[in-house]
């Protein structure tokens, strides 16, 4: 168990270090999300509409940016057989999955945190509810995309048309999580007058529990049969 935790920590550290040493990728991701935010703001037309769609816009930006980030997460492993090397080292497939998924969730959470002040400013939608619950949504929402996203990125990185296939597989699957995250974030921005944010956060956490356990289990099967 301790060995597994050490391996997970090592994989997280390795992936975050790769992101840190290649800042162009991380900043590209952020700029991509900002572009979506601005496009949605232009399309909204009025301040009232912008406030209503602010939560959804933040999550659409994060979700679309995540497809680029997840795609890159495994394309770097494919270069010079790095993934094969990791498996042969031997790194436990569970540690490989949870390490990469955690690193992807942290990157996505970072994009969400950086995007928050911009969303508030551009969409004129301050967080009237609890900022801690808002942070909870960012953590749970990033995790909801990262777990199945990591599994699917592993699959699609080895298939034809990976850049098309990953969003096609991932977006419908995480739609319930996107719905919970965007609705929850929107009600928080409106001050949560009907006390609904807790319910949406609960749904998001349930989604996380199912997908983090199931994806880990299934990832081992894929690594055994790469």
């Amino acid at each position: 168990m301790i060995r597994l935790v050490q391996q997970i920590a090592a994989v997280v550290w390795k992936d975050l270090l790769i992101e840190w040493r290649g800042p162009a990728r991380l900043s590209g991701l952020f700029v991509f999300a900002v572009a979506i935010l601005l496009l949605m703001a232009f399309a909204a037309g009025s301040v009232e509409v912008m406030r209503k769609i602010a939560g959804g816009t933040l999550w659409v930006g994060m979700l679309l940016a995540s497809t680029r980030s997840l795609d890159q997460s495994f394309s770097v492993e494919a270069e010079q057989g790095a993934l094969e090397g990791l498996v042969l080292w031997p790194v436990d497939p569970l540690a490989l999955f949870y390490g990469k998924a955690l690193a992807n969730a942290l990157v996505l959470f970072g994009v969400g945190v950086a995007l928050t002040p911009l969303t508030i400013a551009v969409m004129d939608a301050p967080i009237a509810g609890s900022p801690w619950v808002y942070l909870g949504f960012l953590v749970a929402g990033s995790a909801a995309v990262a777990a199945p996203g990591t599994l699917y990125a592993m699959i699609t990185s080895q298939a034809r048309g990976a850049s098309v296939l990953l969003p096609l597989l991932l977006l419908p699957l995480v739609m319930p999580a996107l719905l919970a995250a965007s609705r929850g974030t929107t009600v928080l921005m409106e001050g949560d007058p009907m006390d609904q944010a807790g319910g949406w956060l609960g749904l998001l956490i349930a989604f996380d529990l199912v997908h983090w356990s199931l994806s880990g289990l299934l990832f081992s099967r894929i690594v055994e049969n790469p």
Partner: protein
Amino acid sequence: MKLAWEHYIGLAGLVLMAAGNAIGLFWAPPEMMMGDVGRILYVHVPAAWICMVIYLVAFAGAVASLATARPGADALVESSVEVGVLLNVLLLVLGSIFAKPTWGVWWDWDPRLTASAIMCLTFVGVMVLRAMVDDVERRASWSAVTTVLAFVNIPVTYMSVRWWRSLHQVQSSSSTMSAEMWNVLWLNTVALLLVSIWFVARRYRIARDRADQLRAPPLEVAP
């Protein structure tokens, strides 16, 4: 020439379907609130039920494929996912036709409708993935994994009408409709189930044949 067993099932299904549709259209009583429009229930509800049953078969095939790596399990995934998507599209189209006269719109972002559309897209993703992978073993394991994950949303789709305040009515059962309507509904459900078994069985045979062609032929001793 001896016909394969599934053709008899398919034939029985088609006969029952013709009878069920005729009874639903001409003999069954009109629904109290919706009148004749309510008769679409006899095809819409069976499409929903059998769609979920076929996805359940795909899930079972996927679990079996992951556990045993047998080509038959993969062929079952391929065939049932395709028939499931076909029924899912039928469900959405019939639901849309039902929605226009009853709700006044072709589509509403109601939790049940949204969940059904998501369900369709996730399984279409499995089909696209299969089309993008040439290696037989990889295709089997990857599509099994994606099918298992796609199936996770199905209980949510089924329970969505109870968990959220939905425009869509709750699941049909013998307690929500009269015995006369319930019997016609069951007749049509059995008919669609038989036809779907026919489709899955035919598609399964095609999938097995294609997979066998892709595998290397067995080594033989030189003459």
